[in-house]
């Protein structure tokens, strides 16, 4: 089975929704595809324990009300069977989508770094914990420690507390000076200032990071380095995220150039591959406001409306400034490279310990020697971790881009004759 569309958008977070809405008046047919069960991306994740902002609900409703927008949930990209064609899969079936223009709004994932005990049940990402709680994970009366870096730690703590958890500590690795410097710049983006004050928290500690998750079969406590002192505390959950990593894998696989670990784009959000655009966090981390304006520019440019796109460029510059301040303030402390010990698993899919990787030359040698990065997540977790630990550059992914069913791969046969 195959399908044709003028514009295919991968990802229905802020960037993808904004792109669809901006392109809708000038595109005959738009397909919007997302691997989550509901639109909104990570920041506007809906669920039984989630509060979705009115702006997000409104945008979602506007997009889904467009008669020329077809939205597929729970669907992910598996392969590129030919030019301007992607093979996709949902829970029921696989099929090919052929397009004239493509916009990648694949978002970002958390940087998850290995430390002793991080594979214990009870340890999650920081944004990970927030996402799981929104989808119904019970945390009432649980003791939670949140560690890592960036404003997401505060957002995660707020969601945990709203749902009855006791947040014992928020450990931010950046120095007090860096955090204060960032906060002092916030008046440049007044809306963000409000968010930051609403999130501020008396359990917050700067210059602090995780040393180990403690426990046998599941998490029982955590050891932290807190302002130069080692402290231990008993807890039920530990949520660790060290910032965000743009999801560039699909762009890379399609041949898009990458710069500074993000998909490279020009003024019009166009990638180096003709007809392929990218917007939002896959072009660099910077929050939902930046994603919204980038998505709108990409959507307008993809349907040839550069005049309207041009009017948004100044707003984009403003949010790029915010992103730059954010990334500078929360730059990672080199001490975080030495958290893992010899037996700490770095690749959680293939259970490859740190000792099997230290001293190897590059990502390719690591794969050949140890199976690191060759499991189900295809290096999305350990590839970003070893990039941080050893400076290795993970190679562009090869299809299937995600674990897929044989039935889906058989759909590759739908390729029309050349």
């Amino acid at each position, binding site marked *: 089975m195959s399908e044709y569309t003028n514009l295919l958008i991968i990802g229905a977070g802020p960037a993808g929704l904004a792109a669809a809405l901006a392109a809708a008046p000038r595109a005959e047919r738009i397909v919007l595809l997302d691997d*989550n069960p509901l639109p909104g991306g990570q920041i506007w994740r*809906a669920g*039984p324990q989630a509060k979705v902002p009115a702006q997000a609900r409104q945008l979602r409703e506007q997009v889904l009300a467009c008669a020329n927008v077809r939205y597929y949930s729970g669907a992910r990209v598996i392969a590129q069977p030919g030019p301007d064609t992607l093979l996709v899969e949902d829970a029921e079936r696989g099929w090919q989508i052929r397009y004239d223009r493509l916009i990648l709004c694949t978002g970002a994932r958390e940087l998850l770094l290995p430390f002793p005990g991080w594979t214990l*049940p009870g340890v999650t990402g920081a944004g990970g914990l927030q996402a799981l709680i929104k*989808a*119904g994970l019970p945390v009432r009366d649980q003791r939670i420690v949140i560690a890592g870096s960036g404003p997401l730690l505060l957002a995660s703590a707020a969601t945990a507390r709203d749902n009855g958890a006791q947040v014992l500590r928020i450990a931010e690795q950046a120095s007090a000076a860096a955090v204060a410097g960032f906060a002092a710049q916030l008046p440049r983006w007044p809306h963000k200032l409000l968010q930051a004050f609403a999130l501020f928290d008396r359990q917050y500690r700067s210059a602090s990071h995780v040393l180990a998750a403690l426990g046998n079969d*599941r998490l029982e406590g955590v050891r932290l380095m807190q302002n130069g002192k080692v402290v231990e505390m008993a807890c039920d959950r530990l949520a660790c995220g060290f910032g965000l990593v743009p999801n560039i894998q699909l762009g890379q696989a399609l041949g898009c150039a990458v710069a500074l670990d993000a998909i490279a784009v020009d003024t019009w959000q166009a990638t180096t591959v003709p007809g392929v655009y990218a917007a939002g966090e896959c072009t660099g981390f910077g929050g939902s406001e930046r994603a919204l304006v980038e998505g709108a520019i990409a959507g307008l440019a993809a349907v040839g409306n550069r005049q309207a796109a041009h009017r948004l460029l100044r707003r984009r510059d403003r949010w790029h400034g915010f992103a730059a301040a954010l990334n500078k303030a929360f730059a990672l402390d080199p001490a975080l490279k030495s958290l893992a010990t010899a037996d700490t698993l770095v690749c959680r899919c293939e259970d490859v310990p740190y000792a099997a990787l230290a001293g190897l030359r590059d990502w390719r040698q690591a794969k050949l020697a140890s199976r690191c990065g060759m*499991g189900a997540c295809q290096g999305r977790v350990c590839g970003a971790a070893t990039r941080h630990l050893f400076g290795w550059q993970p190679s562009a992914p090869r299809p299937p881009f995600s674990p897929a069913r044989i039935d889906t791969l058989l759909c590759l046969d739908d390729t029309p004759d050349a």
Partner: protein
Amino acid sequence: MPDLILDGRPLRVADGTSVAAALALGGDGCSRTSVSGQRRAPLCGMGICQECRVTIDGRRRLACQTLCRDGMQVETRP
């Protein structure tokens, strides 16, 4: 309020609950056993890490990206 079966035990959850959340509501929260025999639980919560993969009605699915439905059979052990 979907009714599902988690590792052979019945469980009722609120509408919109993910299977990842159901693992903690009806069990010990674990989703799979690693290649070296460790039990694991959902990690990233957003469809990246594959730690939450479970068998749902005979198919391998990500628990964090799947909503609970009536009659679902979820298995966390092979």
